[in-house]
């Protein structure tokens, strides 16, 4: 897939970093403002998709990118599963909120909710990047 013109490539390089940091802000502050893991994860994947669509695709680079996305997605959901099982190991119930509650309206409050948000954000962003890469790489007359 060919890339676009020079203007689009330069502007997309500037914008992708901004979108990435905005997505991380929405993930990390998910327990204080609207947003959370899902919204932030989709925004982060939007930054990477912008770079892919503007600069064109090289086949070898994309297979390496697919492996990294698969690794990030699996580790995100594995982290979520570990956080939920710690409650079982401590003798109480599954999915226990075991960290301290803290002062309200602080960033370090609400127990395990920020950690779960980060895990889900990583998983959702890697999953959506994989989906869009798989769709762009479909070629005509591939599996005859």
């Amino acid at each position: 897939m060919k890339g676009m013109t020079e203007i689009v490539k330069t502007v997309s390089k500037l914008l992708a970093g901004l979108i990435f940091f905005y997505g991380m802000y929405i993930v990390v502050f998910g327990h204080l403002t609207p947003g959370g893991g899902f919204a932030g994860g989709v925004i982060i994947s939007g930054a990477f998709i912008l770079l892919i669509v503007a600069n064109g695709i090289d086949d070898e680079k994309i297979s390496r990118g697919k492996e990294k996305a698969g690794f990030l997605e699996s580790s995100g959901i594995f982290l979520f599963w570990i956080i939920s099982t710690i409650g079982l190991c401590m003798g109480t119930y599954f999915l226990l909120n075991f960290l301290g509650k803290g002062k309200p309206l602080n960033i370090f409050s609400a127990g395990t909710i920020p950690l779960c948000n980060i895990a889900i954000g990583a998983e959702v962003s890697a999953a959506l990047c994989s989906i869009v890469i798989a769709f762009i790489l479909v070629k005509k007359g591939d599996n005859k």
Partner: protein
Amino acid sequence: MTYLLCSLLFLVGLSGVLLKRNLIKIVISLTIIEYSLFMFLALVGYKHEAVPPIVTSLTEKNNYVDPLPQALVLTAIVIGLATTALLVALAVRIYEKYGTFDIREIRRLKG
């Protein structure tokens, strides 16, 4: 009145699923049915003259909109995206094998 318009959107999507023969049109109609359901759940939780369910100050108690339907819709939106993507991937594979999107032609050209 609002519930009635919401069910009208549902019926428009349902008629698309029943009457159309193109696979992509069927996928679009399924997505429209899902959107009508999200809107219905958000309508059930609305309260007159209330604010979004975010606690901003610790001293005064505000009138909040119901947060439970919003949590359900949040999950459902992401699952809807995943199933739509899977349906479209299957449709692309069917087109590569049979050469058409028409469901009656596909039924005749078995194998």
